[in-house]
């Protein structure tokens, strides 16, 4: 449950909720009437709805995957920082994150 109070999770959820409220509100209230591309409003509204569905599924996937994980994971960033790609076996010495002092990369 502590994962739900992580600030990045709350921020992501807040972003999704704002969109869920304002895309239909803009469409129903006709807020953008008079915009040069108003003819596209209905298509854009549909794109917005599909976008929200994808985001909700994505959010559910994240929460499901991290159920039993330390919330510090949410702000970890790329874990294989001395490699160009995850599947690479040797550290990439040309990468700016590599200064030769981190010995842990040789142990893997």
């Amino acid at each position, binding site marked *: 449950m502590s994962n739900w109070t992580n600030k990045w999770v709350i921020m992501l959820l807040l*972003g999704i909720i704002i*969109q869920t409220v304002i895309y239909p509100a803009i469409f129903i209230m006709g807020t953008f009437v008079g915009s040069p591309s108003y*003819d596209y409003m209905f298509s854009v509204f549909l794109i917005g709805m599909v976008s929200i569905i994808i985001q909700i599924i994505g959010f559910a996937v994240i929460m499901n995957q991290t159920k039993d994980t330390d919330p510090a994971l949410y702000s970890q960033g790329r874990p294989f920082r001395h490699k160009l790609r995850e599947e690479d076996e040797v550290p990439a010495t040309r*990468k700016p994150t590599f200064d030769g002092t981190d010995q842990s990369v040789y142990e893997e």
Partner: protein
Amino acid sequence: MGEAESEPGAVMEFIQDYRFKMLIPELLVVFALWYLVPESLTQNVYDLVLGDLLGPLTFILQPLFFLPSGVLAFITAFVLHGIYPLDNYHEGKIPDLPKAAVIMIAISFILLPLLVLMQMIGYYMTEATEYISRNPLWERVESVGDLFFYAGAVFFVGLQWWLLIPVFFLSQAVDGIHKIAHHETAHEGITAFFYFLWPITMPLFFDPIEIMAMAALSIPAFAFYSYIRPYYTYVTAVHTLSFALLVLGTMIIAMAGISMPLLKYWVPGAIPGGRPPVPAPRW
């Protein structure tokens, strides 16, 4: 079936070595060219737009002058993928540059010399931080290289120069937030500042519907990769909230009765007024 599946076939290996998944953004740019300049599907754009100015010199910009420029841009997006093995060769990941890559790059030069020249310059700009120095200035140059390489067709075939500044902010932001997520920026604060210039400046260049479309498309396009990699949640959260707030801000500006793009109040005529008409429904 069985063990043979672990080894990719010749076709799959070609697709992987030449990174054909990157066709997704590259073809989106070609479609943007077709949308913004529909004439490019039937005519030589350089001759159409610059013919009076340059005369026969347009031949240099497109030697196959009798073919539609938009179709050539489409083919170029495929054959220029020879640049990805070139990149691996520069990085020392492969000892020899494959012959097919050289031939593909040569063909792309013949199709659209100006576009491919600028894309190659863009590619070398993205290498600037590796070969010159990594500091905030060269990181910005690296992102402009991305602009030249990926958005090249809109500028060097479509000649849509009014898009240069908004796409500059977009390329700085997309490249910058990746640098932050990958822990490879020399200065996180400056990179984050350039990221936020993207949502903040959009009301200057686009009208409310376009901004709403940009938010609705960019959030999942940006985040779909991170949903299965929770260690990127913080950048996904920042991007999702920034663009949700951008739409909210756009809504407030619109309800205050101020029409967008805002730039027209300061620089009249900087942004073409007419948008392409909605195509007739095909069903």
